[in-house]
């Protein structure tokens, strides 16, 4: 019996795209009008993806290791559009990306199609979830990403445009357009662009990818979640007090993570908070365990909030007064360092039914 899902029968190379759209001039207004008329774009001004610009975007990066430009990198739901490097480059140009960042985008798109990510759900849910890209290692400085002050904010071309390119790829190739392919009730600002970099220089622990078995000079992590939820503590050198604040942010009953005991959290520590923990002799695993222990409340409180929940059976058997963890394993709490001076950090609850993926990047 022939299997209809036989990957051997899948085409490896797309029919390809060519520059066939007519644009009278490079006037930004004309480009915007053309894209609006076709239902494309994110509502912000775009850079015209001319043959020359796309060729230049394809030319810098993976070198001899780069696959042919029309080879299919991924098939992206819900539209099941075929993403080739050339098409990724088209969207990178549209987003205003500097040449050189295409390998980061390509690895991020591969990560997005990992089953753990659950891209169909991420794109189509009513939840406001957006993929966050975290760039690690040598690529950060080489490609101009900002891992320091204001890493989540504006002002850095690489952060802003790579995050935007991923959104344009999801809109155009994956078809996650509002209404048809994205049922998001309210959306969130990170659906425009969501990209930061790990501040390895100020991380007192091993870098994030190495902790998760990715031994590469550069890497990118994709996690699909909410906007960052800030917490600040400017008063103490006691790691437990700081992490109690983080745990209180993790405990919000309005989060999609609350009814799912296997859900993942990212806790992005500012360098000063991380240093306080390292000075107290804490490892990254100590931070995870502390957050796991502190992020809990009475089982009855959870039950009062959720009639429908995907919890482990052991939790269902708890008495109302027993303490229930918001997530069932310290390993579901991912910790890394990003940002600059100041005593602020943040929690990023995931969408719940998704797990992060880290892949190497060749730059």
């Amino acid at each position, binding site marked *: 019996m022939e299997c209809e899902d036989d*990957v051997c029968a899948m085409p490896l190379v797309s029919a390809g795209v060519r520059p066939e759209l007519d644009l009278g001039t490079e006037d930004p207004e004309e480009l915007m009008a053309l894209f609006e008329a076709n239902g494309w774009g994110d509502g912000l001004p775009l850079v015209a993806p001319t043959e020359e610009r796309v060729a230049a975007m394809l030319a810098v990066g993976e070198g001899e290791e780069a696959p042919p430009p029309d080879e299919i990198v991924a098939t992206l739901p819900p539209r099941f559009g075929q993403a080739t490097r050339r098409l990724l480059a088209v969207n990178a140009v549209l987003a205003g990306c500097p040449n050189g960042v295409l390998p980061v985008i390509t690895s991020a798109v591969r990560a997005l199609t990992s089953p753990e990510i659950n891209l169909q759900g991420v794109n189509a849910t009513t939840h406001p979830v957006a993929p966050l890209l975290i760039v690690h290692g040598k690529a950060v400085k080489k490609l101009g990403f900002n891992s320091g002050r204001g890493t989540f904010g504006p002002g850095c071309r690489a952060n802003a445009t790579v995050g935007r390119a991923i959104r344009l790829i999801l809109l*155009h190739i994956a078809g996650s357009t509002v209404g048809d392919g994205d049922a998001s009730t309210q959306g969130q600002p990170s659906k425009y662009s969501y990209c930061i970099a790990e501040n390895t220089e100020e991380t007192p622990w091993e870098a994030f990818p190495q902790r998760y078995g990715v031994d590469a000079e550069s890497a990118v992590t994709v996690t699909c979640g909410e906007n960052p939820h800030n917490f600040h503590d400017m008063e103490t050198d006691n790691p437990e007090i700081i992490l109690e604040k983080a745990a209180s942010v993790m405990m919000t009953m309005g989060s999609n993570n609350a009814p799912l005991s296997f859900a993942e959290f990212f806790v992005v520590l500012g360098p000063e908070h991380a240093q306080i923990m390292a000075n107290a002799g804490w490892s990254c695993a100590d931070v995870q365990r502390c957050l796991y222990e502190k992020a809990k409340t009475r089982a009855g409180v959870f039950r009062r909030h959720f009639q429908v929940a995907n919890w482990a059976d052991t939790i269902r058997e708890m008495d109302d007064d027993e303490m229930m963890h918001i997530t069932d394993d310290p390993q579901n709490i991912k910790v890394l360092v990003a940002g600059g001076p100041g005593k602020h950090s943040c929690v990023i609850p995931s969408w719940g039914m998704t797990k992060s993926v880290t892949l190497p990047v060749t730059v």
Partner: protein
Amino acid sequence: MKIYAPEGSIGRPIHGLAEAPKPMSEARIVGLDNRKPGAALLIESAAKRIAQITGATWVGNRSKGTAATPVEDDLLAEIVNDADYVITGTAD
């Protein structure tokens, strides 16, 4: 001036979702004795216990010809017809 369109071709998903299984309370379980010593008793006990816990129906045991050969085509067809789940053993 010519520019690229941003969407590209539509493919199809590599993996489709499997049909959701029935609730175990509606399931029928067959034990398949692989003809190793003691296997029939072990398989039958496990199948009955699972049926008891989940509310499934234990249909009975079937036996293949020998431990060293694949299950026969007609027996396979019978099992497909009679059961939603099969409990069997492999090797020793």
